[in-house]
């Protein structure tokens, strides 16, 4: 087990990131999609912290805090929007929200 710790951490972040990506691709339920985005953002945050640990600097962690704030804001607006959409379409199926095309 002599994998470079930074590499290991980045790989974990990468795996989580891609899992989130898979999820957002295969899900049709919009809440699931929002959830998946959170997974991806979290993975990115993890990557920052790992990098920060590599260099022994605080700015990666500071970045994580901002990501956290952004995720919170994103989720709140997202949920409000989903609520609107739910009222409008009576479903959370993202494929239903495809009135505009061409």
């Amino acid at each position, binding site marked *: 087990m002599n994998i470079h710790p930074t590499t290991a951490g980045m790989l974990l*972040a990468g795996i989580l990131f891609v899992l989130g990506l898979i999820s957002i691709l295969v899900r049709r339920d919009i809440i699931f999609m929002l959830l998946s*985005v959170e997974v991806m953002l979290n*993975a*990115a945050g993890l990557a920052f912290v790992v990098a*920060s640990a590599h260099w022994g600097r605080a700015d990666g962690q500071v*970045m994580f805090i901002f990501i956290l704030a952004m995720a919170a804001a994103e989720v709140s607006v997202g949920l409000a929007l989903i609520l609107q959409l739910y009222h409008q379409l009576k479903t959370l199926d993202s494929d239903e929200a495809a009135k505009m095309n061409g």
Partner: protein
Amino acid sequence: MSFVDFLSLGPLITLCAASVIAMLLVAIWRNHRIVYSFAIIAFLMSMTAVIPAIIYIPHPVPPLLVIDEFSLFNTGLILTAGLIILLLSFNYFEEREERKEEYYLLLILATIGALVLVVSRHFMSLFLGLEILSISLYGLIAYLRARARSDEAGIKYLMLAALSSAFLLFGMALVYAFTGHMDFPGIGAALRQAGYLPVSVMAGFGMMLIGVGFKLGVVPFHMWAPDVYEGAPLPVAAFIATISKGAMLVLLIRFYQDIQGNNYPMLWWMVAIIAVASMFAGNWLALTQQNIKRILAYSSIAHMGYILVAFLSGVQTGLEALAFYLVAYFITSIGAFGVVIVMSSSLQDAETMADYKGLFWRYPWVATVFTAMLLSLAGIPLTAGFIGKFYVVMAGVNGHQWFLLFMLAINSVIGLYYYIRLVATMFAVPAPGQQTTVVPALPIAGNITLGILTVLLIGLGVYPTAMMQLIQQMMRILS
């Protein structure tokens, strides 16, 4: 933060303060007209604040921000564009939504985001600016809650923006992990020191490109554009088309310059492929499109491709051309959206071709303005768009990018087809009894704004020298 910092960041700080005041104002006294007036004043003050900032340039505010000619020029550009969009908004929202006041608040916030992008030279400020812009835009796009399509547009934008943010973040993390820096000059220095471009950094740049590409709306990250333009309120669409993209481009230039991207042919290749693909996709998609908003969306995709050609030319002229093109593109796009705004009745947006049939014979003024804007988009002389395209081609020739230029030429011809189709529709002689029922609002403020834009458009088209000199000066500093 020193006094000089304050002065230099004046425009940004003014606008931030304005956003807080506006929020309080809305909380205390909900009145459309008041908030509207306040927002205008805020923009004007912010623009005024640009003037003292000029004294101290270039003035870096480490580690996040930098104020120099380039950022101030673009700050001015964005504020002006924002102001014009603001001017066009009043009548549009007056009839459409019972709660109009938050719009101005969100617009100010989004502009703040764009300004942060323009002045930032650090991943953190980049990220924050981008997110301020994005999150304000979620609210703005879906602002007209009564419209089914606005939710759809909002959710699409939100999902894709969040996704691309995730990519951007992951990319930044990769770059950070292998360079140890998050500020652009630092990254550049670290790369120079390493003497080569580590693969993982390259991967990081690649993933960041997705985030940037999404905001610019270039292929293959462009798909949101038509739907969002169609679903969003028209002034917001204008905002996305111009300010959001412009700010991102400015940031891209700065980043590229700071890391000396020209040294990495790999990056060049990726952007070149994206540029060519964007030109083709945008123009092909618009070819027989019937919805004006979507046409403008596709057209903006193609125009991003053209801009990237200037970006890729690898010569000083290219950056100048980009800046000039951006100015021309701002004027033209806002003008085009302005016409659609002015043409829209309080009942519905004037978004189908049918609404414009024979427009010239009914409302010659509006049709003339729209024609001028479309011709500018097409790059026909007497318009700013022509000089812009000329400048871009010039940069390309200077940089010997013959292949890209050839693609640009082909695409200009394809693009002509749909612009001219629109023009033809406006000038078509309507058969008797075939008049459309849409009664455009044609507000006075909107007309005046359009008039100013047209004058600017033709002024830049006929006498571009002053603007060119300004840009040249500004760009000399950057490199």
